[in-house]
C-alpha cells in the first residue's frame, strides 16, 4: 500500500461523541435509532451539558437509552415521559431535561402528556422518533402508520375509515402557544443528518434560553418490522414518508416575540 493510500485510511473523520457510551447497540441493522442517539450525544457534548443533563427514556426500542447516553436517565411508564420530565424540570430548573420517545409512546398512549407539557410551555426538549410502527412489540399499527400500510394489527392495510389518518405531531404541537420550537427532520442522507443536527441544536437552545417546549420529530426506519432491507427502508423515508410528513421547521420562537 502506498503511503497516500494508508493515510486515507488512518485520517480521523469521525470520533465517538464523549456522551455516547462505547458499547454494541441492540438496534437492528438499518435502524435509525442509533443515528438519533448519536446526534443527541453530539449535541449534549456541543453545549457541554453532559453533567447537567437528566434524560427521560420512553418505553419502546429506545428504552435502553441509559445504556448508550452517558448521562443520568430516568425511565418513564409508557407514554408518560413528558410528565416525568416535567417533574424533574420543576424540581431542578437548572438541569437540562430531555425525553426521547417513539411514535407509539408519544403519539398514542402519551398524546395527553405531550400536549399538556407543550401547552404549559414546559421548558424541556423532546426527541421524537417516528418509524410509523411499534418497533419493540413487533410492528403493530401506530397512529403514524401510513394509509394502506400493512402491519401486524392492520393486516389488510390501514384504512382511514376505521383507524383514521397518520397523525402529524410536529404540525399539531406547533399550534400550541407553549411550544417554542417544532421541527421535522430525517436521517437518511448525510445532508439530512447535518440538518437534523442543526434542528436538535436549536431545540436545545430553546431550553437553554428558557423559551419553552421544544420538539424535533425524526422520520426513522424500522426495517425489521417493515419487512424491508435497510436500503429499501431508506428509500421509503425519502419517498412516501417525507411526502406525507414534510420535513421542515413548523415553529421557531424568536427571543423578541417571547419578551
Amino acid at each position, binding site marked *: 500500500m502506498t503511503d497516500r493510500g494508508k493515510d486515507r485510511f488512518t485520517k480521523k473523520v469521525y470520533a465517538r461523541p464523549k456522551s455516547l457510551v462505547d458499547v454494541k447497540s441492540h438496534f437492528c441493522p438499518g435502524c435509525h435509532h442509533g443515528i438519533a442517539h448519536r446526534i443527541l450525544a453530539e449535541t449534549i457534548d456541543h453545549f457541554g451539558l453532559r453533567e447537567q443533563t437528566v434524560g427521560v427514556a420512553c418505553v419502546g426500542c429506545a428504552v435502553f437509552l441509559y445504556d448508550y447516553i452517558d448521562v443520568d436517565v430516568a425511565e418513564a411508564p409508557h407514554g408518560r415521559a413528558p410528565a416525568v420530565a416535567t417533574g424533574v424540570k420543576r424540581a431542578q430548573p437548572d438541569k437540562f431535561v430531555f425525553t426521547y420517545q417513539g411514535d407509539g409512546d408519544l403519539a398514542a398512549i402519551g398524546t395527553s402528556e405531550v400536549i399538556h407539557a407543550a401547552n404549559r410551555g414546559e421548558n424541556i426538549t423532546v426527541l421524537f422518533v417516528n418509524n410509523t410502527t411499534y418497533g419493540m412489540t*413487533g410492528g403493530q399499527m401506530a397512529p403514524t402508520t401510513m394509509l394502506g400500510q400493512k402491519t*401486524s394489527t392492520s393486516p389488510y392495510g390501514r384504512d382511514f375509515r376505521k383507524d383514521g389518518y397518520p397523525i402529524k405531531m410536529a404540525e399539531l404541537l406547533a399550534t400550541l402557544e407553549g411550544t417554542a420550537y417544532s421541527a421535522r427532520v430525517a436521517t437518511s442522507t448525510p445532508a439530512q443528518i447535518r440538518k437534523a443536527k442543526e434542528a436538535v441544536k436549536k431545540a436545545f437552545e430553546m431550553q437553554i434560553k428558557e423559551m419553552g417546549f421544544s420538539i424535533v420529530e425524526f422520520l426513522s426506519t424500522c426495517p425489521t418490522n417493515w419487512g424491508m432491507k435497510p436500503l429499501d427502508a431508506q428509500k421509503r423515508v425519502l419517498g412516501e414518508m417525507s411526502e406525507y410528513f414534510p420535513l421542515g421547521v413548523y415553529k421557531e420562537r424568536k427571543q423578541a416575540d417571547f419578551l
Partner: protein
Amino acid sequence: MNVAARVEQRVFMKGNEAICVGAIAAGCRFYYGYPITPQNDIPEYMSAHLPTIGGTFLQAESEVATINFILGTSASGKRVMTSSSGPGISLMQEGLSYMAGSELPAVVVNISRSGPGLGGIAPSQGDYFQAVKCGGHGGYRMPVLAPHSVQEMYSLAMLAFDLADKYRNPAMILGDAIVGQMKEPFTQTPYVPTVSQEKPWALTGCAGRPRQHVKSLYLKDNAIEVHNWKLHRKYLKMQEEEVRYEDYHLDGAKIAVVAFGTAARVSKTAIQWARREGIAAGMLRPITLFPFPGAQLEEIAKRVDVLLVIEMNTGQMLEDVKASTTFHDKIRFLGKPCAMPTPEEIHGELRKLAGRGR
C-alpha cells in the same frame, strides 16, 4: 385407542391464538386492545379474523382507552374481550372497577409478565394479587381462571364469557408467557352455552320501554351501601357455584403440591418422576383462583403430611392457602419470581420432603 380419530380433530396453535378461537366460538365479535409483549398474538389474530366474520377489531391509543371501549360495547349488550399484560392491566384497573360497579360483563386476558414496573417479559405469576384481590378501587371481585395448557386457553376462554354474563361482571383469564407463547395440539370442542345471552339491561335505545341506565354512581340515601351488599351476594354465589380445580393423583398422596397455571404444568413432570420412585405426591391445581378452592384445600390438608405451594412469585396464592387451612405447619413454599421452576428443581424438593437424599 383410535389414534387416527383423535389425531384428526387436533389443531396445533399458540395458547394466545387458542384464546381467540375460543372467544370467537363463544360469540365474541368485538376485540379492543393495545400492543404489549407477550400477548401480541391475540390482537394480531383478532385483527386478521374478526373482520372476516363481521366482527370489529380496533386498536386503541392506550389501555385506558381500551377498557373504556370495552365498557361501551359491553353496555351495548355485546360479548367483548381485551387482552394485555402487567403495565397495561394496571392501566385498566379504574375501568374494571367502573365495570364491576356498573355490573358489566367482559373478558379480560392478562398474559402476565414480570414486574413490578416495566419489569421484564419473562413469564411470572406476580399479578396474582392484582387479579384475585382486584386492583381497582372500591372493593369488588371477579372470576379469575388460570389455564395451564393450550387446551385450557381455548376452553376457559369460552367459560369466561359465560361466567361474565352469568354474573354481569368482568371475568379474567390469568396466563403467562409460557402458556401464551407455546404451541401444542388441542381439540376444538364445540361451545355449549350455559347461560342465556339475553341482555334486557343493555342500552339499545328506549324504543318501546322506559329509559334505562348503566352506572356505578349511587348518591342517594344509603343506595351505595345497598348496592355493595347486592354485589357481595353475587361474589358469595360465585364462591358457592364456580370453584374449579384439578385433582392430580391426590388419592393416597402424602405430599400435595398446590400450584396453578405454568407452575402446575411444570410440577406435573416432577410429580410423574417422583411417583415412579414411589413417592406419594399429587397436586391440587386451582383452575379458578377466585373463587379459590379453599374447602377442597382444607380437606386435602387433613390427609397429607405436606402442602407444597409452588408459585412464580415470592408467595401470593400462599396467603390464600394459609387462609383456607389451620394446618399451617404442613405448608412449605417454593417460589421462583419471574422465572419458571424446572421439573428438576421441583423433583428435588419433592425428594427432600419425602426424606430421600438427592
